[in-house]
């Protein structure tokens, strides 16, 4: 069984409050019953009511279940139980699972099978083609509208933009949502903050408008592009294929959809809010290919996010890559086993090399958003009121103003070089994890 650390467990918490409550429940005296088997752990936790809550964890993923009424996922009991396992494994009796655990585990393996069979069931090809045709017409119309909007803006000049209300951007974005181009809508919405981003905003605005224009142009000439670039442009527009569809295409041997088997190290994750939507970017690194892969998860409102990929852990498994270019997005098709951390294998770059890799990725995909960098032999430095990382040749990268824990980074380094994994957005680095000789530490963001 793989060893979990408290940090990894706490990284599963849906919010700071749940983490805090979970911590206070990680106390043997709260749990009259604690048990474990090869696959699962379970416990009964005293709550405010008469009957104790029954909490269980399937360790394979991990997956949680609890009889408490909380809508948080995992709930504080799940977190408390898991923390207890990492710190007081001796308090868990090795035992055959009680009925309420076995039933759940069986149900879980059934639903996993159902997922598999559902995936192979294909929708009627004619209906599918028709839907695609309808969407293409809508997107095309939306793009004509967007292009006109862009040209009007350039015609009238960027100078008045700081006075535009949020509505100005939001309405343009809403039209793109109606046109089934959510990716473009997101780009338009993100323009709204640029006029208020300080000095040089016109440069940043023109740059973003230019890239948006390139995307529109690219789509209008899509048939002249390579299949991978076509897929990339479509996905940038927001026309993304479903996981079921990709699974099916992969099974049918479609050459543009590839599965990839490897040992995957979970390098880090970042979660942020985007219009009522919680977005989670998780970065994996393939052991054999050293290729970074992006896993995106979304959750509406209070829906729970997927928590099965825990930074600092490794698993053997197969991914299916979304068609596209440059840094690829993927989803997990199957996981075989968790394996011990392989941090020693990570190839880290000095700043200059990381920059040239970034340039290469940009040349494959001009619309690249966040780029994963593994920087080796760097040190955090506070200079000119900002935080940076500096490598042994003196090259520096500014750290993101959003980064919460520069002093944590400094404490871990102690003035010695580190390996830092983070997202580079073209201007700033957001550190997501740190690798030292002995440990992997996820940074909270």
């Amino acid at each position: 069984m793989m060893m979990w650390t408290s940090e990894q467990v706490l990284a599963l918490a849906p919010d700071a409050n749940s983490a805090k409550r979970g911590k206070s429940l990680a106390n043997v005296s709260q749990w009259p019953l604690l048990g474990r088997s090869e696959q699962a752990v379970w416990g009964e936790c005293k709550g405010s009511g008469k009957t104790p809550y029954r909490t269980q964890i399937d360790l394979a993923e991990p997956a949680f279940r609890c009889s408490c009424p909380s809508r948080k996922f995992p709930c504080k009991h799940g977190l408390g139980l898991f923390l207890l396992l990492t710190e007081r494994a001796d308090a868990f009796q090795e035992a055959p699972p009680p009925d309420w655990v076995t039933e759940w585990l069986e149900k879980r393996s059934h639903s996993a099978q159902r997922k598999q069979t559902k995936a192979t069931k294909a929708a009627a090809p004619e209906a599918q083609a028709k839907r695609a045709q309808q969407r293409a017409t809508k997107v095309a119309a939306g793009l004509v509208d967007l292009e006109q909007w862009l040209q009007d803006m350039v015609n009238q000049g960027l100078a008045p933009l700081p006075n535009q209300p949020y509505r100005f951007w939001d309405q343009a974005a809403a039209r793109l949502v109606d046109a089934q181009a959510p990716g473009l809508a997101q780009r338009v919405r993100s323009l709204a903050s640029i006029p208020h981003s300080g000095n040089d905003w016109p440069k940043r605005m023109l740059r973003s408008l230019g890239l948006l224009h390139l995307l529109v142009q690219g789509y209008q000439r899509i048939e002249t592009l390579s299949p991978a670039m076509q897929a990339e442009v479509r996905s940038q527009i927001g026309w993304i294929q479903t996981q079921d569809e990709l699974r099916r295409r992969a099974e049918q041997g479609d050459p543009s959809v590839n599965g990839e088997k490897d040992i995957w190290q979970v390098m880090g994750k970042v979660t942020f809010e985007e219009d009522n939507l919680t977005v989670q970017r998780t970065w994996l690194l393939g052991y054999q290919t050293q290729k970074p892969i992006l896993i995106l998860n979304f959750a509406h409102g209070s829906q729970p996010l997927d928590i099965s990929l825990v930074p600092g852990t490794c698993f053997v498994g197969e991914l299916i890559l979304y068609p596209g270019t440059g840094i690829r997005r993927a989803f997990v098709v199957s996981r075989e086993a968790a394996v011990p951390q392989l941090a020693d294998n990570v190839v880290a770059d000095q700043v200059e090399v990381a920059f040239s890799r970034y340039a290469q990725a940009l040349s494959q995909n001009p619309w690249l958003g966040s780029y994963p960098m593994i920087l080796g032999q760097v040190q955090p430095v506070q200079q000119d009121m900002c935080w940076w990382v500096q490598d042994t040749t003196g090259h520096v990268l500014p750290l993101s103003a959003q980064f919460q824990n520069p002093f944590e980074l400094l404490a871990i380094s102690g003035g010695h070089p580190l390996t830092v994994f983070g997202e580079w957005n073209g201007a700033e680095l957001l550190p997501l994890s740190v690798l030292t000789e002995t440990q992997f530490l996820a940074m909270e963001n």
Partner: protein
Amino acid sequence: MEPWQTLVATALVGTGRQTPTAPEGEGNLKHLLDQLDWSQPEQSLLGAAGAIALHQQIGQQPAKKDWPTVEPCSLEDRRCIQMATARHLDTALSTYPEVLPELLSLIIEAGQRVPEWQLPRLLQMGYQTSELRPYIAAAVGKRGQWLAAQQPNWGYAQAGDANTFLSNSSQMQAVWQNGRRSDRVLVLQRWREADPNAARAALEAVWSTESAKDREAFIAVLQTNLTIADEPFLETALSDRAKSVRQIAVNLLVQLPRSRLCQRMAQRIQPLVQLSDEGDSLQIDVTLPSNYDPDWKRDGIQAEGRSPERQQGGWLEQIIAATPLDMWGDPVVAIRAISGHPQQAILMPGWGLAVHHQQRIDWADAVLNNPMSQLLDDVMVGQLLALLTPQRQERWLKARLPDNPNEEDITHWLLLLVQRLQPWDLAFSRLIFEQTMALANDSSRNAYSFTSEIRNLRLTLHPDIAAEVAIAVENYSNDANASRHWKRSLLALLKYLNFRREMHRVFQASE
């Protein structure tokens, strides 16, 4: 102007007002830009912007800086605390901050340190809560001391712990010379623990240039490892400009019976007190001083402060308090002698102060175990009690356990001990808890105010009592007559005891 800047300038104004000029590029970029049709200015400008922006982004080079480097931290450090303790620390920081001194003491006693990633949060906590600083400074290890030097608010933690304190290290000298007052106090404190005479010499060297507030804070540090070697310095401090400094000097000197101050006091008391030894009893004759001698002022005797008719008694009380207790001979005999004595209301409080200032354990024991101690107020009794070893304190308190448990007596008894922030042993903790439950079960009055008085028990009862408390609390909660306040207060007590038990368990298990 560069083509990109021209392009931005045009875009700002708008192509409606200013016709854009086609920017020029080189190589591939030129090839791309040449394909644009400038008869459609908006479209071309956007196209050029996209191409040039991308070109710039791809050609971007990282900046190279020649910044001064920080001396790296030594990699040899104490062992880190276990993961479970790290989480306990995390929980204590957010939920049980009152437990931090206990937890940090466990870490320090085990010779361990807090892991790197927890340092910023802990150091920040110390910045906000000065009482925690001595503990934090000793628990952060070399890495924490190193980090503390990088952030001015955390400077206090550079002092580290007394065992590894090096007064001549550049870091300590830097703090001692340029640090904030509170940081310097902590460094001086460690210095004093490690090398008392060198610390005093360092203080003397800077003494004349320090402000009154600084002098006050620094001289108080001499309480640690106080010896007669400190006397000459303290004697000069009696002439200090600041009253607060003079007062501290007096309080320190009275603890040194061989000090000139104590000798002067002995001379002053001589005409006022006649002792005649009559075998195993003592006769004490007292004359009140007739007037205030101006020389007394320098030695800390206040002229005013009481009503005129009690002024003379007040002077005598102060002289007694500052005179070495040894002049009275055996404390048990002396205290017995003032029973029924006309001046017992001056002698007893004077002795109480003397015992407190001179930290005399034998006298504290004798005073507390004599019924005359009733002449002392509860604060003084608490101060004298604090001088005794925990075992002696427990014995003393046990002897005063109310034999006929009624609410008032129990309350009074509990109030004697709940102010102490010292750990009780398991057997005595049971006794305290028994009394507490007796009070809780007697729900005749609203216990609201009292339940807040017993808050300290959360921190002072032995953690191994948690299981017994859990049962008692459960039984109590099931009682229909249970008071809401007591229930809440007992549940909170249980929560703390459980947390502390887990906390201790990690250290016991690793022994």
